[in-house]
Structure formats: structure tokens, C-alpha cells
């Protein structure tokens, strides 16, 4: 028995090449779940959106790569 995973990353092609089953786009290599350009509230909302996509991907089958 394994643990289902979703990966938040920016280099999506690399993740796909090595066989990562559920891939969600992060904001940037430098800050996958945030963005220093945004104000605190907007950044938190962005993070929530990205994490939400990862959770959605987790509930789907493999290779159902979200956003």
C-alpha cells in the first residue's frame, strides 16, 4: 500500500518525465506556494488556490494533472 501524492512544482515537464502522477503548477521555482509581489491577503488566497488544486488532484486518478 502506498500514499497518494500530488506534486506542486514549476518544472512540470521534469516532474512528468520522472513519472510524478499528479502535477500542479506552482507559482515559481523561487516560491512554489506564494508570491512576494502580492500583498499578504492576495498571497494567502493564491496559496489556497494552489493547495486546493493539489487536493483536487489527489482525489482524482493518477495522470489527472490539474492546472
Amino acid at each position: 500500500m502506498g500514499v497518494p501524492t500530488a506534486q506542486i512544482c514549476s518544472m512540470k515537464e521534469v516532474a512528468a518525465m520522472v513519472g510524478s502522477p499528479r502535477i500542479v503548477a506552482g507559482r515559481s521555482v523561487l516560491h512554489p506556494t506564494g508570491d512576494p509581489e502580492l500583498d499578504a491577503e492576495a498571497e494567502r488566497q493564491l496559496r489556497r488556490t494552489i493547495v486546493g488544486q493539489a487536493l483536487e488532484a489527489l482525489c482524482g486518478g493518477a495522470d489527472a494533472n490539474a492546472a
Partner: protein
Amino acid sequence: MESMRVVHYLNQFFGGIGGEDAAGAEPQIKPGAVGPGRQLQARLGERFEIVATAICGDNAFADDPAGIAERLIALIAPYRPQLVIAGPSFNAGRYGQGCGQLCAVVQEKLEIPALTGMYEENPAVEQFRDRVLIARTAGTARHMGEALYSIAALAARLARGETIVQPAEAGCFARGLKRTVFRDDDAAKRAVDMLMRKIAGQPFVSEISVPKFDRVTPARMAASLANATVALVTDGGLVAKGNPERMPTGYTDRMTAISVTGRRQFATDDVEVHHFGYNTQFVSDDANRLVPLDVMRDLEREGVIGKLSETVYSTAGAGMSLANARKVGREIGQRLLQDGAQAAILTST
């Protein structure tokens, strides 16, 4: 010219002791060539002499690889070999382990070359190819003749003191060593030549070997999200404040466990980021940009997820070898299962 003294290693089956029923056979040695060793002797020719054949059962070897290798060395040494040849083991897992282990220990303890032969999917290839010269063979003993031919050809090259620069052409697995070689054309011309051949549908050989990645059947969610314990994992180099475990910034074979019990978010007095592969400034300022602890706590409180797993696992995925990545991945997977995590979100930089 005096011939080179060779000790050959075989398992219980090829050594003529018995089949699976004899897989527990203890290490033993017989003078001269045995079984496929006679054919090997014929392939090797007069420049080599198989002076003895060491034999051990596959199960006995697999149960205590280090101990058995040591006992075999003690049996082999008195024959004063200049080369040890093991197998070939084709696609046989336990036999391959034994051959690889023995060759590695022979080189280390007796300080003489050792050589074996295996099929590319034998797990022992990945385990030993960086240390042991392994001839490429087919998958089954039906191809014994060809396998012995390849092994004998490699033995001849070793005896001549040759350095193998092109493993593919020599019929063996790459040990992953890098050597400087001189080429007539520069890299740009070679690359364009390759491209032209590719476009024309002609064969070409890339100068970059692409590692083979495992294909793992992905797990599925067993519980609904609202009942699941979800864990956070990162390869972005998150460490506890002050880096107490002295986690390296890359080239590592380790991971670190960071407890988030009682934390609603990461603050700069809790954690740091150590990773040589990217500018860590933005995630050092706010580690939630790397591992979304604050949002996961919100989702936990709101009941979107059942629970956040209280330990975050982290490593620095920079310059990490495939073998180390497998090891670290396996460790994190085991820890997640122990923690009762039913899903994980991995963040990568």
C-alpha cells in the same frame, strides 16, 4: 607467457550441487573448472587458467551477504587468483546479488579485478555496476554461450590492462565514470550531425545517457478528503531553525523531519531554508511560500481535510543522484505510513 590464474564463482545450480532444494548450500571450493566453467575455460583460451570454482547456495548467500562473501574469500585466496569471474547470473535475482557482492569484496579485499555478467533488468546491475564490471547478457541461461563469449572478451581486455572508455561497445554496463577523451569535431558539429541523422531517420548515439526512471503504480485515495490525514513533504531544503541536523544544501542522501505540532504557520524563528539549487531568499522570508502550512491549518480547521499530519519531511533536491532520491523517497514513504498519513502534497522548487 604464464597464464592468468582465474577463480570462477557459481551458485548451487550451475555448480552441480542441486536445484532450489540445495539453495542453502554452504560455501565450498573445487579445484579446476566446473559446469559452465569448462565452456568458459574454452572461451578464455590458453592465456587464462581456471584454477578453482567457488560455489555457494543462493539462499545462504542472500541471508548473510557480507559473512558469506568473507568465507568465500577465505576459500578463494589460497588459490592466488589474479582474476575472479562470477556467474553469469542472467536475470536471477539472488544469484545476481551474490555475484555482485562477491566481485565487490574480491576487489576490495584481494585487490584483484573481478568480473561478472547479468541481464539488464537484474536488480543487481543497478546495485553493483558502479563498482563491478558487468558484461551484458541475455535474460536466460539458454544464451550461456554468448554470455561466456562476452565475459571472456572483457577478461581479455582486462588482462591486456585496457581501460574501457565506451561500455556499450565493450558489451558491459556503464560504471558511471567520466573520462576525458579527445574528439576530432567540436560539440556543436557533433550535435548538428546527430540532429541531421535523426531528421533523416538514421541511427545515432547520444553522448548523454538518460537514466532509467522507475514507473510506480500511483496509489489512490482510500478515504474521503474530509476524513483523510494529509502530509506535507518538500524537496526545497526546509530545515529547523539553526539546522541542528546539519542538513547539506544538496548532493544529499538524507531527509529531515520537522514537527509542526502547535504551529499554525511557519515563522522565521522556526525554520530556515538550505538548498544550493535556487535563490532561497523569498522562501526564507516566509517558508509558507515553500510548504503551505498556514493554508493547510485553515483547511484542517474548516474540515476540508480530516487532519494535517504533524510531521513535515524535507530534503534538498539539488544534484541528488537517482539512487539517493530513491533511498530518501522510500524513507519518507515509510515514515508517512507510520504517521498514518493517507495522502501527501509534495512541493518542489
